């Protein structure tokens, strides 16, 4: 089982600890064995320990330590990182998790009613199939 996601200039990673928790960032340079210089269009370029990053499959084409303008252009150009992320299964799971956490009490009640309805329909179909089999 060889590694598939490498730490390299242009690798998109997800910050999983700290102030920038949940942000998608681009690895812009490697400082030493433990730290990377990391940047995103909406944050100040800063160093981050690799332990705080989760690498993704997405990689963009940039030179080492690009100017902020070039970074933003590259992010837009490389088939729109944001879209790729939101369509990936990992990205979709995060979005669902966020939406579930933001449900109000009434929303949770409506969700429960919908789940019961769906289960009833499924059970009906199942019983029909059982009868015909």
């Amino acid at each position: 089982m060889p590694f598939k996601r490498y730490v390299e200039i242009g690798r998109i990673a997800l910050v999983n600890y700290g102030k920038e928790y949940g942000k998608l960032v681009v690895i812009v340079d490697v400082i030493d064995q433990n730290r990377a210089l990391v940047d995103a269009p909406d944050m100040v370029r800063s160093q981050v320990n690799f332990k705080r990053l989760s690498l993704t499959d997405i990689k963009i084409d940039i030179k080492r330590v690009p100017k902020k303008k070039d970074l933003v252009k590259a992010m837009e150009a490389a088939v729109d990182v944001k879209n790729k992320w939101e369509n990936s299964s990992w990205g979709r799971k995060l979005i669902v998790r966020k939406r579930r956490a933001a449900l109000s009490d009434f929303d949770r009640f409506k969700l429960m009613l919908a789940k019961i309805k769906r289960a009833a329909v499924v059970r009906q179909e199942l019983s029909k199939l059982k009868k015909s089999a």
Partner: protein
Amino acid sequence: MAPKKPRTGTRNPELIRGIGKYSRSQMYHKRGIWAIKAKNGGVFPRHDPKPKPEVPAQKSPKFYPADDVRKPLVNKHRPKPAKLRASVTPGTVLILLAGRFKGKRVVFLKQLPSGLLLVTGPFKINGVPLRRVNQAYVIGTSTKVNVSDVNVDKFDDKYFSKDAKKKKTKGEGEFFEAEKEEKKVLPQDKKDDQKTVDSALLKAIESVPDLKSYLGARFSLKAGMKPHELVF
């Protein structure tokens, strides 16, 4: 030009606590005492106190109590009604946390002068009548019902006070009979008040899908629900 407002505060800005920017003579000049003196012929105007009306001399009392009694200190403190949380506005759905109706989801109507919240089920939906409830035992949800058509002006704390107990005649034979007849019947006008408030509310509630069954269901914590992470 707008009329000039009278000056409030000192003309001597504070550099550090206890030290002003201007000296005594500079302040004398700033306050214009020289101008007031000049207007009044070299002397600062002096107003003698008005003569007080004659008070008849008080006679010494005939009777002094044997011991000096300590009088308690005067206390002019008037408690303010509890401040309403920002999440609790008229029409909000509240979750009651304690008491007979714990877990019930209920519509908030208004805050009474004592600070308690006036709340109703509506009675037809979940059995909670017009009732007073303390804000501390309540979770305010983000769900709101339109209560602009509901008139709650006639309700205040006196409406909910208990009736004064009638004196029971203490005869032995009558005592045992009287106990059986002590059932409390809700007066008809209170039932009518409940009906009028609820009928206006029910229209607003039925216009939102699922809201009626939501108010009829009780709230409970299930497995995996963390109250500090829940958005109400």
